[in-house]
Structure formats: structure tokens, C-alpha cells
């Protein structure tokens, strides 16, 4: 049993490593497709032929693409992500700083998301199916699933920040002083992300609970006269947890992309916004680094989610 589990986790680790390698190659290849070469973009259109030649040699642009990919990958493995074309400084400190902010925002969003969505799903399941409360929860969930996160974010900003003035409209966390101010800047983006994520888990938990509550052993528990709360939490919940965990895992993966949009909405200095800005500036080393780190995070989250699911639902291993 445990050996089978270890082997599965090992295989999953290997696949993740391969995925990361493939991602790095894809990202590099896409950036190669940019029109014009890097030297031309750096020096502008009226650069002299000599200056271009010197810079090309400096950037090793005369080498074939696969050789430069090897160099870049070797550098990345040594912690050298290259030099930003815009800031003219090493990329790594930028990426590390922005990544820290993204991690903070994403981590907080997830920390709120898990208890919130599962307890809401439980609450929904505890009420009568198709009753008024259930219908209301379904309606709100449908709205949360249908409105894109940037729409939710903009409305939260215009109501809570611009009109009521309770929160700052922009999450300029790098200018905030003290933990209280930091929390104030983070609250709206965290709420926005949760609004977008909760609906899905809530529906999964609720549907799984309804299915489990119909099962024979739950009916038996009720017939035995056990208190409803005991039946709900001890008998039904453990068996309804797998779909909920699955949904949370999917959301954690979604968060990597969702955070890009939310960071732009709130002008939050995270890795997603850095990526979007660097793409517009055609700052290739910065784009490569940011995309690689975001993809690695995505892969790591999926890996962690798979392992968690394997550990928590041994039923899936038997097949």
C-alpha cells in the first residue's frame, strides 16, 4: 500500500520535472518568435551596423537558438536569470521580490478560501434541498461562476473603495507601512479572488453532500437516532470531502492565472503584473524568468494537490 503510494508519487514527481523542462522550452521558443532580434529592439531603429554587431556578439545572438536555450537554462539552474533589457539590471531580484508579493496574496486567498467554501457548502447541504436557502446559495454561486474576476474586482473597488472609501482602490503594498495598512491593502484583492473561487467548491461540496446524505449508511445513522449534526460531520462529511478537495486543488491551480488579472486590477506589485508589463515592453529575459517561475508554481501546486488527494482518498489508489 505505502509502497504503491510512494511509486505513484515518484512517477508524478518525474512527470512534473519533465513538464517543467518542456515548459521552459516552450516559453523560450515562443519568445524566439518575436519579430526582429533583441539587439535591434535594444538599440532602436537608427542604430549603426557596428553597434548592432557588437551587441549581438555580447548577447551571443549569432549562436543557434538551441545553444542559447542551453545557456539560458544553465544560467537559470545557477540562479542567473539574465539581465533585464529595460531596467539593465539582473532579473532575479525583481522576480524574487514580485514573487514574494504574489505568494502572500495567493496564500492569503487560499487560506481564506478553504474553510470558507467548505463550511458554506456544508451549510448549504444542511438545509433542505431546493429550499429557499439552498436556492439562494445556488443563485449566488452561479453569479460568482459567471462574472469574471476582473469584473468582480472593479465592482468591489468602485463600491467599497471609491464610493464608501473603506479601502484603498489600489493595493500598493510596497508603499504600505505596518501590518494594519498591509492588511487593508490586501483585503480587496483577497476578497475578489475568493468571490471567483468559492462558487465552484461550494457547488461540489453541496452536490457531494447531497449524494452522500442519500446513501444507506447515512439513513441508517439517522434511523439509529444519532443527532443530525453528528451524522453530518462524522458520517457524511468525510465521504464528501474528495470532490471538495479536488475542486480546491483545481482552484489553487486557477489562482496562478487568476492572480495575473487581479494584480493588474489592483496595480499590485506581483509576478503576474510584472509578466504582463514585461511582455508589453518585450523585455525577453524578464518574461522568460517570470513565466518560468509562474509555471513552476503551477506545476508544484498541481503536484501537491495530487499527492494530497492520494493521501486523503485511498479509494482512488485501489483502481
Amino acid at each position, binding site marked *: 500500500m505505502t509502497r504503491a503510494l510512494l511509486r505513484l508519487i515518484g512517477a508524478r514527481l518525474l512527470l512534473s520535472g519533465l513538464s517543467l523542462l518542456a515548459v521552459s522550452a516552450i*516559453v523560450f521558443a515562443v519568445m524566439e518568435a*518575436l519579430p526582429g532580434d533583441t539587439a535591434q529592439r535594444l538599440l532602436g531603429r537608427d542604430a549603426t551596423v557596428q553597434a548592432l554587431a557588437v551587441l549581438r556578439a555580447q548577447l551571443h545572438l549569432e549562436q543557434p537558438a538551441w545553444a542559447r536555450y542551453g545557456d539560458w537554462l544553465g544560467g537559470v539552474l545557477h540562479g542567473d536569470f539574465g539581465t533585464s533589457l529595460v531596467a539593465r539590471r539582473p532579473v532575479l531580484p525583481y522576480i524574487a521580490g514580485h514573487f514574494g508579493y504574489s505568494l502572500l496574496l495567493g496564500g492569503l486567498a487560499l487560506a481564506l478560501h478553504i474553510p470558507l467554501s467548505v463550511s458554506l457548502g456544508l451549510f448549504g447541504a444542511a438545509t433542505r434541498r431546493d429550499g429557499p436557502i439552498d436556492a439562494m446559495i445556488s443563485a449566488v454561486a452561479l*453569479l460568482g461562476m*459567471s462574472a469574471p474576476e476582473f469584473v468582480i474586482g*472593479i*465592482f468591489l473597488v468602485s463600491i467599497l473603495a471609491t464610493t464608501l472609501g473603506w479601502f484603498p482602490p489600489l493595493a500598493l503594498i510596497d508603499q504600505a507601512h505596518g501590518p494594519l495598512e498591509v492588511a487593508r491593502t490586501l483585503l480587496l484583492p483577497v476578497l475578489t479572488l475568493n468571490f471567483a473561487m468559492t462558487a465552484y467548491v461550494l457547488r461540489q461540496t453541496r452536490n457531494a453532500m447531497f449524494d452522500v446524505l442519500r446513501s444507506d449508511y447515512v439513513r441508517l445513522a439517522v434511523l439509529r437516532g444519532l443527532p443530525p449534526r453528528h451524522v453530518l460531520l462524522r458520517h457524511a462529511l468525510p465521504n464528501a470531502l474528495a470532490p471538495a478537495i479536488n475542486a480546491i486543488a483545481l482552484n489553487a*491551480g486557477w489562482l496562478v492565472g487568476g492572480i495575473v*488579472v487581479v494584480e493588474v486590477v489592483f496595480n499590485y506589485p506581483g509576478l503576474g503584473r510584472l*509578466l504582463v508589463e514585461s*511582455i508589453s515592453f518585450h523585455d525577453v529575459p524578464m518574461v522568460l524568468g517570470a513565466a518560468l517561475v509562474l509555471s513552476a508554481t503551477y506545476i508544484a501546486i498541481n503536484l501537491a494537490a495530487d499527492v494530497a488527494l492520494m493521501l486523503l482518498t485511498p479509494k482512488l489508489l485501489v483502481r
Partner: protein
Amino acid sequence: MARRLPRTAWFGAAVVVAYAVLSVAAPWLAPHAPDEVFVGGTFEPPSAEFWLGTDNLGRDVLSRVLYGGRTVLLLAGSASAISVAVGGILGMFLGLRRGVVDQAVMRLLDVAMSVPPIIFALLLIGALGPSAPLIVLVVGLLFVPNVTRVIRAATLSVAGEDFILAARARGESRAAIVLRELLPNVAGALITEVSIRTGFAAIFISGLGFLGFGPPPPAPDWGIMINEGRSTIDASVWPVVAPAVCLALLVMSLNLFTDGVGRAIDRTAR
């Protein structure tokens, strides 16, 4: 099956059809050209002439929303068609074929799914420059792995059934088996996928527009409109609210339809 569709699903379908009609008829319905600028008429509140007011450049919001509906329906619909066509064929093929080819392709799709979709789309569109065909192609291909998984699973669940074995034993050709035996049984899953992917694509493409990677002007796009309007939301909420509500309603209707079809299939299976 159609008779068993819940009322909410019919409502969703009706709204989507209404969107399609309004989009096709946009040139006749729109009171103004979408990029016509009314000098001195910026941020007008709703009036008899401008039903939804005007935006920061003095353009009629209603006309822009109508034309924007064309953009989003056309792009999201095409992207969804690409993903379901490619993923559907691939999924059915792999589900029937199984074996080494199936395993190899599925692992390859696993790797493809390990790039966060929005990042892949931003990179490609950022590198090659935003154009409507590129956006459709990128978004359509990004959804292929998910569709393939769903249709492959649906195919696997019927591939071992007696009627397929019987058709094989009768010596029917592979094409006949796919068309007459398999297709009717995965049709529900295919319809659901079209609806799900269209909704996802609408959100995704609007998100790209919002981030500045949408279809280039003059084609009005709801995501671009929302992005343009948000910095001046104090002056007028209409340029943001109108496209946002239209987008949410479209996706909500698609979700209602998807849910209803899913539930009808569940009930048939039971």
C-alpha cells in the same frame, strides 16, 4: 432528452439565442457606428439619443456593446468549435484505440496542461501581436486537452458496452461504429463541452482584452471596454457596467444550459 431539460436550461438557451440574433442584427439595431465620436459629448448619462450614455471619447455605449457582442460571440464560439472538434475527434479516437498510442498522447496532453493557460496565451499573443484569428486559435487549442479528457472518458464508458461489441462482431467498419453507435452516446457530452468551452472562452478572451491583449481596434471588445472605462468609473459607470453585465449574463446563461443538459444526461443514465 429535450423534453427532460429543466426550465432553467431553456432560459439559458433562449438568452444565448437572443445574443446571437442581436449580434447578427447589430448593424441595423445600433443607433450609431461603434467608433463614431461625438465631440463634446463625453460621459453623457443615458438619454433618448444615447440609451446607455457615452464613454470617455464620446462614443455611444449601446452601439459599442452591441458590436462587442459580435466580437465575443464570434471569437468565443470559434474557439469553442475548434477545441470541441479537435478534442472530440481525438478523445473518441483514443477511447476506442486505447493501448500505447492512447497512453502516449494522454501523457503528452498532461505536459501541455502543465503550462498555466493564461500565461501561454499572453506569451504567444504578446510575441506574435494580437489579431482575432490568433486569439481564436490559441484559446481553442488551449482547451483541447480538457475536451479530449472528457470525451475520451465518455467514449471509454460506452466502448465496452454490448451494442458496440455486437457492431464489431457484425463486422461493421470503424467509421460506421463511430457514427452510428458511439456518436449518439457521446452527443450529450459534446453539447455540454461546446457550452462550457464557449463560456470559458468568453471570459478568457475578455480577460485578454482587459489585460491589453485583445482583438485590435476598431472592433469593440467587452474586455477592452471594461478596461478603458474603469479608470474613469467616477465620471460614468455605464461604459463599465454595460459590457460587464452583458458578459456575466452570457456566461450565466451558458452555465444554466450546461447544468440543465448535464442533469438531463444524469437522469437518463440512471
